[in-house]
């Protein structure tokens, strides 16, 4: 499992760095160029492009991690909810 841990850590690090790079590029290009015209929303309108594309999965995950870790929320409210152990 140490290998899995290192693998996950490496992948996350690379993606995080590339996202930071993307943000910097977007900011340098100016916010005015952001966005699309209404007729350019074909891809964005797809279900899989919804920010919370699987709300049921997200609810189940939130319940697990709320019970097992000291952090909760972020995407939505942190909330109370259960005396889970």
């Amino acid at each position, binding site marked *: *499992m140490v290998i*899995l*841990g290192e693998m*996950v*850590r490496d*992948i*996350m690090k690379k*993606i*995080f760095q590339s*996202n930071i790079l*993307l943000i910097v590029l*977007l900011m340098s290009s100016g916010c005015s160029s*952001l*966005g*699309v*015209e*209404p007729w*350019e*929303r*074909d*891809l*964005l*309108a*797809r*279900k*899989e*492009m*919804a*920010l*919370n*594309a*699987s*709300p*049921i*999965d997200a*609810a*189940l995950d939130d*319940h*697990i*991690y709320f019970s*097992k*870790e*000291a*952090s909760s*929320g*972020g*995407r*939505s*409210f*942190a*909330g*109370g*909810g*259960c*005396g*889970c*152990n």
Partner: protein
Amino acid sequence: MQLTNKLQKTNQQTLARNKSKNLKSLLTAATCSLLGTTGQVNAKAQSQTEENQWQFDTALMYYGETDRVTAVEGIIAATKEFDDEEFLSLKLTIDSLTGASANGAVAQPYVQTFARPSGKGTFDVPAGETPLDDTFKDTRVQVNASWAQPLTTDYTISTGLHASKEYDYVSLGLNASLTRDFNKKNTTVAVGFAAFYDEIEPEGGIPNPLAILPEPKTTAIDDRPRIGSSDNKTTIDVLLGLTQVINRRAIMQFNYSFSKVDGYLTDPFKIVSVVDDLGLVQNQIYEKRPDNRQKHSIFWQTKYHFTSTVVDFSYRYLWDDWEISSHTFELRYRIPFGTGYIEPHLRHYMQEAAEFYRPFIEQGDAYPSYVSADYRVGEMNAYTLGFKYGLPLKNGQELSFRIEYYQQDPENPGYDLPGVLQDVELFESVEALIVQINYSF
């Protein structure tokens, strides 16, 4: 309550409505054929075809830890669009929990005997093993209801209610949020508020924090120090969100959340071992946590649509006045597969310990004001490796399967381990398997 991009929702709704209309037309035509009214669809029938159907999403999940907790959770969620963009959502969640959970005490090179939290009877923990309290058995029922509607062209409001009940716990909550669209609906700003009231009534009552546990005995006499039968806490959450369409393929969300919790935040089932300089347990005390906590978090999500695949990456940084901080990285990658899709999932969670976390207390040291040996407020790394397969069926139905492996690796935040504690596992990993089936219709 869901702070999703309104415009994205609008587009989906338009597509769904068109699809729904087609389906409704077919159903109406079929009904008319059966009734023998060939093709003469009157105005009433026409208006009925405009009404939307309920959309159901259901799931059944199994969560099993090696030698510890096992849970089964079922969800039925129903959503209906009443008028243009007015949505009512109802959700019922039922879960059942059994098994054992670490009680906070340290492992010892001999058999340890503990009183059950209820005060009824005792249980033994074998030499060298992490003490697990095996008395967890609970069933929880939760209901949620929410309503969302546009206020004006650019504003949308949503409100929600939450109620959850289990044997020893009740949680009630409400929430509201307001979103405003700008810039041809490419930018959405959201502000949300939620409040919860939780009450716990543990079997055996609320233990006196930091009091020494009496010697476990098998008689029915319960002389454990108690300060009451129940206690409560209140939670206030505030969420500020910004969603931005970047281009035809990319969308981002940024959230800031603040959460303030006041009241009973101690876990009545957790204890802390007091050890001598040989690492041998002298006694156990009940844990005590502060009676308030203020958390902050920032959340950033990016979704990008490649030619056919979709990558979903999110990062959350959380910090609080217990000195807990955490980083969470999550990645999903959706790949078309046959008529459906597959979606690998990776999650990495890193947590710094709470200021009052102690894996044990050394005899002779003054008791701290607050102390908990619960590994969940300690230092840890956690990993999730998952895989989902989704299969669209006829008429907008979908079946999907998910399997995930979750591992928590608690770590020593820097305490010297005296004597025998060097020879036992104090920071044991927890491994869990999650299996889930979803059906939407």
